[in-house]
């Protein structure tokens, strides 16, 4: 098991051309804590994840995984330090089987490097960690099936499975329940909670039930600015958040 690690953003800003997408975002989570990031579309949530995970270079501010700074590192270097991320649109290996998808995701953490002398794809069973993962995600009966032929919900489950297969201590989840029906979302949220119990998790999510079910703290990002970061109850009562979400509508009064 890898050591517990926290995740920290210090003064992170980012701009595409002239449009400022993130301005001076500071977020800190202690190891094992779950932080939900909410906000309207185009608030910069995905950009923040892209900066942390190495998709975009960090130009202003710093991101620290435990004590290690992630500035200037490429995605695979960051992953090796113990940070795994999922994607809003499932990025799975469609021609490989479900089991092979998980096996590929777990290779590095099992100490396997770019070796071409061991036969690995013919091993009958996955190791225990992956088998339990398959079990929890209800993918065991479909493990030999090509991932491309899975239903949408199963692909989202596989996406989550691949993110967790490497047993990374810090997990970034980008809208894991996107496109799922009400019933599927509730079930999926409980599985996420069970599988990420001892990990530091940052999760971008729109569904408020999922947010309040999983989050120890909630960060509200609007127009690239962090307007609140507090426990779920305080955020619910925060007038600025209501304004950002509903506009200046007070129930009865029609403008």
């Amino acid at each position, binding site marked *: 098991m890898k050591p517990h690690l926290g995740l920290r953003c210090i003064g992170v800003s980012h701009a595409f051309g002239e449009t400022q997408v993130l301005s001076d975002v500071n977020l800190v989570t202690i190891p094992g804590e779950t932080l939900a990031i909410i906000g309207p579309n185009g608030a910069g949530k995905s950009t923040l994840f892209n900066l942390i*995970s190495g998709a975009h270079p960090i130009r202003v501010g710093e991101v620290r995984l435990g004590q290690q700074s992630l500035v200037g590192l*490429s*995605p*695979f270097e960051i*992953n*090796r330090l113990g940070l*795994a*991320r999922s*994607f809003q649109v499932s*990025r*799975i*290996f*469609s*021609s*490989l*089987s479900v089991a*092979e998808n998980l*096996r*590929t*995701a777990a*290779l*590095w*953490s099992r100490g*396997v*490097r*770019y*070796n*071409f*002398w*061991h*036969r*690995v*794809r*013919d091993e009958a069973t996955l190791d225990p960690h992956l088998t339990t993962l398959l079990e929890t995600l209800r993918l065991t009966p479909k493990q*030999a099936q*090509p991932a*491309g*032929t899975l239903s949408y919900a199963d692909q989202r489950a596989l996406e989550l499975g*691949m993110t967790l297969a*490497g047993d990374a201590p810090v997990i970034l989840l980008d809208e894991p329940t996107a496109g799922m029906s009400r019933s599927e979302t509730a079930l999926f949220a409980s599985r996420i909670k069970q599988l990420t119990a001892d990990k530091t998790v940052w999760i971008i999510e729109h569904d408020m039930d999922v947010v309040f079910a999983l989050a120890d703290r909630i960060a509200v990002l609007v127009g690239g600015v962090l307007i609140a970061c507090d426990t779920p109850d305080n955020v619910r009562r925060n007038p600025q958040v209501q304004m950002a979400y509903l506009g200046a509508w007070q129930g009865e009064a029609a403008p």
Partner: protein
Amino acid sequence: MNTPPIQARYGAMFWCLFALILVALPLPFPGAYALSLLSQMGIAILACLSYQLLLGQGGLLSFGHAIFTGSGGYVVVHALVLATEGAHTWSAAWLVLLPVMGGLGAATLAALLGWLSTGRASTPFAMITLGLGELVWAASFMVPEVFGGEAGISVNRLMTQAVGPFSLGPQIQLYGLIAMYLLGGAWLLIAFTRTPLGLLLNASRDDATRVAYLGFNPRVVRYAAFITAGFFAGVAGGLSALNFEFISSDVFSLQRSGAYLLFTFIGGSSLFYGPVIGGVLMVAGLVWLSELTPGWLLYLGLLFVIVVMFVPGGLSGGVTRWWQIRVREGWWFVVRAGLGVCAALPPTLGTIMLIEMLYHHALVRDGGVATTMVRLGVSLDVAQAANWWLFICCTPVLFWLCRRAWAGLGLLGDQGSQTAPSAAARPDQGGQL
């Protein structure tokens, strides 16, 4: 999404059968010409297997594969020149290892050029390999001492000391060597796909970005595959140099690289059967067909375009797909498929006759050839307008009938081109295999 089936398992039984076939093949075809064709097919299959590693397994479209088959050949030729020049001539035993030296030479070149070209996949990779291919081809004319320029370099296998009966002189012994290398090469290449690097290569083909977020650098994965493919291409090139005892700068030409691409793609996505079909078709097309008809390149071009448009997984992919349908729909499907093929024969023959008449007409116009030609057992006078009209009218009608028959037999499937919402939204899918 028509994802290819999980790789078929290639167990010990399979390899014994394959070895048996390789041994048994020359028996029914004893003639020297047949043996030379078989030898060339063996070499072509190995080259297609190495190309399949890039295109099929890695989704990497290379236009410069001839760099490695060519360099492998040159290493072997120069080694042979050294072996037979010096006072102490090498024994034939060394010859057996020459192709491996060719492979190592090509792999070194792949290592030098590989990091450059594997920065990105699909179109940029294709463009860099095209540029490198042209570069090496043009450079090979610069240095006649090494590459022999137009005239090329010829060597003689016989100049080595025989070890008992074994001297690699007679063609049958060379065929044996090629069969051994093909068996070993195929086993190693297919074994490669079962290793972590093989798994990562398939993963990089499907989604290279995701591989980067799982701790591996997709560029290193492509680079390793590039070198491995270069090695086996070098072995094939070495064998080819041994087989022809001659090599010239022409081995680096774009046509040669194009041929590997063309036939491996036609062969199709299946890990083993694709390259086998591709290799056999390559020799059949480039050697045998080209002696039969002047229009051989047109036929190959047509076949390639038809496969690209209508049979996405190549011939082996198509057969696998029809086999899956057969498993699902039972023998009735085989009957329908058979009827479909019969319906397709007349229009195909009509087209072939039309093309042959055109080519013969061209020959007549260039002078020195009688106007009657004999093709497919039919003798035809090209000067007769009636013949032309006969075929020009009949063939489209036959095509229309065949299409109706295929529709009736339900073989068309969803061939209609759906109006895709927009081009920009579609991520670039790289190799479709």
